[in-house]
């Protein structure tokens, strides 16, 4: 950040249980449930809210354009200011950051960020087609448009460059589905073995069904506030310390082969022969992390971050993201999971909630769901909200949330900190 705006805090959150299909509720009612949970948790009234940001990915999935205003309307937030923010899979993270800016810029004291997606509107393969329409419709979609295929090619190159193995990918699936056993909001809690993952149906080599997240209906709400309002309205606000965003080319084909943008704990000689990002790494992820770390004064991420909720739509992207975030060097992501560093009781728990793989991925809600779970972790209120504290990270003081769009076109990183 060039100059510092006002401090921004998260003061409450709510999430619906993500599920394959919840036809009893439309998107408006789903958001209302998450919103009521968030407002009830701190006795927030409608009049306390200055405006909102709507987060959803796809007009196609929604079968409704301008869905955002229908939620604004349903929540009783008209005629207050609002807008929709979108950026594929990173929509939730971008909307959260837009809410941050509404407050940091001094425009709003309290901003509600609400995210949702109705993916049960079509069958899974049509849903994959909708998602593929978010790849270049002239050059990539017609060749066999399928995002799992694109990520599989990235994973293959990562394995080629760095020796990452399919067993290491499987370990991410085991960890995240396992963590979700204790998350009552999660869609797919499962106790798995490497064999389970590798023997599940192959989707796009080397990624199996259990390497890939599913489609979901769901909603999530985060309430952000200025410092003054945060401490007035909430007993235990959590500071949103900094935000960062990166982008990359739509076509994987157009990704450049250059030098790695270094974090403070890295040196040029670490990556002498690495052409970057190629198709093995997410330059947008690294760019987002750099912006967020610089603004938060983080120079040694592995030791300065206590836990991470990151965008694991694919097991391979969790491993790639360890590296983008500088939790380990490029090439070390496979051993990072293998050595258990990202386990619940590891050096830095990654996706203690179960991540997208196990919690579900209703696109516009996902990045906000991460913020809510992180908020509860940093409030040390997981027990209250999950009705058990198995997933409460004991030393949780500073967390990182990470949202990501198709093949890394948009990536956001936000840093949150406990202050009480």
């Amino acid at each position, binding site marked *: 950040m060039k100059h510092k705006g006002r401090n921004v805090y998260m003061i409450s959150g709510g999430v619906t249980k993500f599920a394959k299909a919840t036809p009893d509720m439309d998107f408006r009612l789903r958001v209302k449930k998450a919103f009521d949970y968030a407002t009830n948790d701190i006795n927030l009234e409608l009049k306390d809210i200055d405006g909102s940001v709507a987060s959803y990915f796809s007009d196609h999935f929604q079968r409704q354009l301008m869905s955002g205003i229908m939620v604004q309307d349903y929540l009783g937030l008209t005629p207050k200011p609002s807008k929709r923010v979108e950026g594929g899979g990173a929509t939730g993270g971008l909307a959260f950051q837009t809410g941050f800016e509404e407050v940091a810029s001094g425009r709003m004291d309290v901003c509600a960020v609400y995210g949702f997606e109705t993916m049960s509107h079509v069958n899974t393969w049509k849903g994959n087609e909708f998602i593929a329409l978010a790849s270049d419709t*002239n050059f990539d979609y*017609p060749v*066999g448009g399928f995002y799992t*295929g694109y990520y599989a*090619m990235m994973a293959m*190159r990562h394995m080629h460059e760095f020796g990452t193995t399919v067993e290491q990918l499987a370990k991410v699936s085991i960890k995240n589905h396992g963590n979700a056993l204790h998350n009552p909001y999660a869609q797919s809690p499962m106790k798995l073995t490497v064999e389970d993952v590798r023997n599940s149906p192959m989707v*796009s080599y080397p990624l199996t069904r259990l390497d890939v997240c599913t489609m979901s209906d769901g909603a999530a709400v985060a309430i952000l506030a200025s410092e003054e309002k945060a401490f007035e309205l909430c007993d235990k606000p959590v500071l949103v310390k900094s935000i960062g965003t990166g982008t990359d080319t739509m076509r994987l084909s*157009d990704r450049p082969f250059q030098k790695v943008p270094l974090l403070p704990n890295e040196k040029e000689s670490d990556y002498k022969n690495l052409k970057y990002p190629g198709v093995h790494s997410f330059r947008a992820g690294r760019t987002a992390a750099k912006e967020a770390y610089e603004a938060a004064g983080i120079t040694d991420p592995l030791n300065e971050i206590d836990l991470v909720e990151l965008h694991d739509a694919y097991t391979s992207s969790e491993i790639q993201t360890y590296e983008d975030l500088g939790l380990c060097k490029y090439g070390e992501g496979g051993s990072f999971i293998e050595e258990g560093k990202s386990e619940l009781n590891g050096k830095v728990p990654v996706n203690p909630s179960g991540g997208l793989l196990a919690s579900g991925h209703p696109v516009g809600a996902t990045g906000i769901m991460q913020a809510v779970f992180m908020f509860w972790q940093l409030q040390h209120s997981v027990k209250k909200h999950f009705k058990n504290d198995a997933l409460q990270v004991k030393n949780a003081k500073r967390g990182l949330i990470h949202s990501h769009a198709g093949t890394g076109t948009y990536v956001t990183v936000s840093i949150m900190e406990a202050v009480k």
Partner: protein
Amino acid sequence: MTLDYDAKMPETQEGTEVYNTDPLVVKSHYDIDYIHSYAQDSEFFRALGKKKLLGSKCKKCGYTYATPRGHCMMCGSETEWHELPQVGKVHTFTTCYFGSEKFLSETPFNLIMVEFEGVDSLFMARLIGADQEDIHIGMKVRARFKRNLQFSPTDVYFVPARE
């Protein structure tokens, strides 16, 4: 017309397919016919009919793209068409066993990213003539072209080439 107090909409037998009554779940169809222009990228598609694969080369900085791009993302300048070699190497690959609805009937199929000698970026395409276990990164491949164009990037595809 004067007012017709007993006006009645004609009953029709155009029904709605219903999947459930509580909640009420219905089928709803939508379709679109687009008038789609390939605009500044048109020549790429036309050239496939002459069995030519066109990329772009920046007139200013010389960066060479294996895809059509009217302007260079490195320096912002205009590019010109640049004929690509028709033989390259597999930079990475996958085999899709599932896919989008539109391509489900074609599964399994191979996707590859092709790297060309002297070209700075890659090209995504289908590879035929090889199963998943036959493909490896670095493998030589060559372009083939359809005779009856569909004006789609699949008018060009790749097959294994002898080393």
